[in-house]
């Protein structure tokens, strides 16, 4: 009840809807950080995952790298990179990318590696080039799992991008951090609600993409 009252008060206050500290601009900043980090992480994780999954080699190396990256605390990495690099977008992107690469990398590798070998052999027997096998047979079949890796990375980035506000950047974390220090509880709860909503929107978007992109034959399995 208590929390709901605060949520209502936060969203009911028209001062929260305008200007650079308004909900639309903070929301947009948060989405920007998320998309940028996700794009960089995907650019690293997808090719490596596809290649190693296709050849079936390097699985142990991937597990080691992913475990090591997962063991690094995002918050610590953030503070460390700010102290070493200074304020800016780059030190925030480092922990977010480190956070997002392991799920993308490991899931992509697993997804491609565990594709049913029968269609892959059939494609090879028909004389398909290796790149064709990868992109026209393995990737479509593995797509649901690959998407689930991207989705879990995206959700983690959305909720972790909150800490960008701790090192003076914007995003929805601004409300949480500012509210914490101003003892403005309403702001904190409002910010938290917005981040949770964004995470749920992300889940919904990936569900929609999966609906649209995954071939019906694969989905039925």
């Amino acid at each position: 009840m208590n929390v709901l009252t605060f949520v209502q008060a936060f969203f009911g206050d028209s001062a929260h809807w305008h200007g650079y500290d308004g909900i639309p601009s903070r929301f947009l900043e948060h989405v920007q950080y998320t998309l940028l980090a996700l794009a960089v992480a995907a650019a690293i994780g997808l090719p490596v995952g596809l290649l190693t999954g296709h050849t079936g080699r390097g699985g142990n190396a991937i597990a080691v790298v992913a475990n090591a990256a997962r063991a690094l605390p995002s918050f610590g990495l953030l503070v460390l990179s700010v102290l070493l690099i200074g304020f800016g977008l780059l030190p925030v992107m480092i922990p977010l990318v480190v956070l997002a690469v392991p799920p993308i990398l490991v899931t992509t590798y697993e997804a491609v590696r565990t594709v049913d070998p029968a269609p892959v052999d059939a494609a090879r027997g028909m004389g398909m080039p290796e790149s064709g096998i990868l992109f026209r047979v393995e990737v479509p079949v593995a797509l649901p799992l690959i998407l689930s890796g991207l989705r879990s990375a995206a959700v983690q980035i959305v909720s972790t991008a909150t800490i960008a506000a701790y090192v003076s950047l914007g995003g929805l974390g601004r409300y949480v951090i500012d509210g914490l220090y101003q003892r403005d509880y309403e702001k904190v709860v409002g910010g938290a609600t917005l981040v949770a909503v964004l995470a749920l929107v992300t889940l919904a978007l990936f569900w929609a993409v999966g609906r649209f992109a995954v071939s019906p034959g694969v989905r039925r399995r």
Partner: protein
Amino acid sequence: MNGFFDIPSDLQHSWAGLIGVHLREALLPVVAGLLLALPLALLCNRFRWLYPPVLGLTTVLYAVPSLAFFVVLIDYTGQTELTVMIPLALYSLVVLVPAIADGVRSVPDETLSAATAMGFGPVRRYLQVQLPIAAPAIIAGLRVATASSISLVSVGALIGNQGALGNLMAAAQKYDRPELAANAVLTTAVLAVLCDAALVLLRRVLTPWMPRSGRERTAAPREELLTKGAAR
């Protein structure tokens, strides 16, 4: 690096003390999560219709950022360790419930029939047959939950002095001493790796019938579990 272990006195702990606090704040929630997930998974397997809503609920809880969760809880539990541990316990459910539910459900029917034929009642069959066979999947879930829990405790530094090794990171920024942040990051990472190794060892002890060189096979279901948890 000068002053690598020179912890500022306002943290009120030595380096080893911080490690102790960190482990307590990270591992107790995982244990609590496991104790909560076991009956939940049992219920989910007994009543199939319960599984999707339970998974949906844990996914929604998981989507709430840790910092926001902490701050909202301050109103109820104050700036205490409990405020950090409750969200971590809830987060662990998103991995543990599907890990246990799917693991227990994947026990072959023949095995269950054999146990029944040998006179096992449902409770004993669950404890002595289903859980041990599901142990690798459960421990795979525990590994993911433990790793993320150890990493997330640090965020507790933002709500005051409750981040254990995370406090060291905050102190690094306050006093502009990067070596303290490096210390905190490295120590946390080493803790995570050591706990992971301990869980792998536990799996080997609990499942002596499994092949020993199971690295690739254990690495695989881990991530799948995590994504599965968020999936449905």
